[in-house]
């Protein structure tokens, strides 16, 4: 695609000949006010002009937070601008998967996850994104006022369940149960897998038990983990 100085043409529906996402210009996946803010922002104009899939990586590794629109003037975050650029480029499947699966840069991974959620089919979305519910690295999210701490798995979970993430109304995803009923997907196997079964077994039996190799404290009262004093046991190898 030619990189023209005035990129307004890409927002014009009439002559669009590129890839269609959900039957329309992929840039229309973002709402009009958000699109306007992005295109008028300094970051977009200076840094996002003329990027291709490779140079976008250079920008993406400089990312420091995710987020949508912030501030009184509704300034778009850099994450959002780069996501918009990805939509404009519509890179190939392999490239996006590479962005997602690389281990080193978590914000690039978040960016790829966002793109996948916007553009791909439900089955592929679930299959591709669910493994990353095990990635517990921290992310900084820029909210409307100030910053918040979130995690990669939390972000992916939001993408899969919520309606609006990062100032974008996500395309409605059929719930997983529905896809399971249609036999499109199989029921999800959590990364906690075996430990979960053990917990269930313990609950049913009504006993508390520590399994070898597991550092999970059995929940009797329904509270979650994360109490300070429980961690002392975690360093034991046996766990007995």
């Amino acid at each position, binding site marked *: 695609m030619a990189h023209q100085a005035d990129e307004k043409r890409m927002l014009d529906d009439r002559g669009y000949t590129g890839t269609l996402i959900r039957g329309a210009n992929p840039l229309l996946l973002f709402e009009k006010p958000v699109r306007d803010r992005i295109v008028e*922002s*300094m*970051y977009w104009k*200076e840094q996002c002009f003329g990027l291709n899939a490779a140079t976008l990586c250079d920008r993406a590794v400089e990312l*420091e*937070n995710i987020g949508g629109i912030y*501030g009184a003037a509704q300034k778009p975050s850099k994450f959002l601008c780069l996501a918009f650029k990805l939509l404009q480029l519509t890179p190939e499947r392999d490239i996006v998967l590479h962005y997602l699966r690389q281990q080193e840069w*978590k914000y690039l991974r978040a960016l790829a996850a966002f793109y996948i959620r916007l553009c791909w089919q439900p089955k592929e979305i679930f299959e591709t994104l669910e493994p990353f*519910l*095990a990635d*517990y*690295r*921290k*992310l*900084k999210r820029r909210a409307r006022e*100030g*910053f*918040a*701490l979130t*995690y990669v*798995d*939390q972000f992916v*979970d939001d993408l899969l369940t919520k309606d609006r993430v990062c100032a974008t109304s996500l395309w409605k995803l059929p*719930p*997983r*149960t529905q896809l399971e009923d249609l036999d499109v997907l199989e029921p*999800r196997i*959590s*990364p*906690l897998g075996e430990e*979960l079964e053990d917990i269930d077994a313990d609950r049913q039996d009504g006993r508390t038990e520590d399994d070898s190799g597991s550092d*999970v404290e059995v*929940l009797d009262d329904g509270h*979650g*983990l*994360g109490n300070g004093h*429980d*961690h002392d046991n*975690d*360093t034991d190898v046996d766990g007995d």
Partner: protein
Amino acid sequence: MPPKRMTANRDRSHRYFPGKVEYAQDALSSDSENSDAEVSSAHQPAKPSLPKATSFPKDARLAANLSKINLDARRAQAAAQEAERLKREAEARAKEEEGFVTDDDNDEDDGSRREQESGSEEEEQEESTSSEDDVPKRRMPAPKFISKTNRKQHSVPVFNEEELAAQEDARRKERADEMLQLQLEKQAAAKAAGKKDWDDDEEGLADEVDDTDDVDPEEERALWKKRELLRIKRDRDAIESAEKEREEIERRRNLSKEEREAEDREYIDTQKEEHEGKGKMGHMQKYFHRGAYTFDADDETKQLLNRDIMGSRFQDDARDKSMLPSALQIRDMTKIGKKGRTRYRDMKSEDTGRWGDLGVRDRRKDGDHRLDERFLSDGDAERPGGTGANAYAVGERRKRVDDSRDGRRDDKRPKYGR
């Protein structure tokens, strides 16, 4: 502006105007030396005479010193210096031009001529600078040929004022360039350090939230486990509730009809109780409606939305408004005392109809209190012809003038008689 003599008529005699400065015609004459000689001689009479009164400060000491100044001494000194310099140059030239095939005579003549010229120029310059201090006349020295070897010998080049100015400009430009360079370097360094223009507001706040990983791996892993378990729990709850719904539907289908109705009635009753438990609207209580806009809310918001508004009372609210005087029996108590309030109380009190009050029909037979027929009810005065306007027959028509004469009137307009 070029001197007027360049374009003016040269042959015209020059008239004397007091105070007017005459320009000498330099460049146009063919023999420069003659013109110089002329000019130097003509310069003196053309010079304007000194004014009678001087605006020079009347400091006596200064004036006295002025008179003491002897310019001749300076002139003699300058002339001596010039002569020396010329002699040196002539010698140098003679030395290295020995091999040259040039016209030595011409050179010497030129040299002498130049000497004369420069001497006279010096004089002129001295005069001009002494007499006209604010506008010193500058004469360009005539260009001399210096051969290559001589050129190198000039260790201290003598520059003109203009060349000096040019040098100054060049130096100033250099300094400006250096400053610009420094600024650019500073900007580049700032950019490299990570300070970007469009992120001014981010730096301070962003430090509060720390997204470095592996600060405490165990804790992070534990937190992740907690989140994962919550997610699993949520999924399972969703599955269970869907299951329950399906079961319920199945069960209801299997019940008989009466049982279903019994269940429905129970449900409605419980609903009623809930509504009653919420505050009822008292007599003349202001109706606060929540608003029709609802959206998918979380639990807190749902609680807020379902709160009991009508049951709430504020401090001065009277429960039973019938105890109040009629002027205060208003639905919205905030409007008391204000001009624009509506006097409307409730429909019943404002209604003027008579509902179900049919006692008036019994009084039809009572002739003593017979009302005027206009105020009787319709059932009362039923005449055979009709009621109201139809009660009387139409009377005789008034006689019209044109009825008597048949078609013999001229004007068309019907005239009605008195």
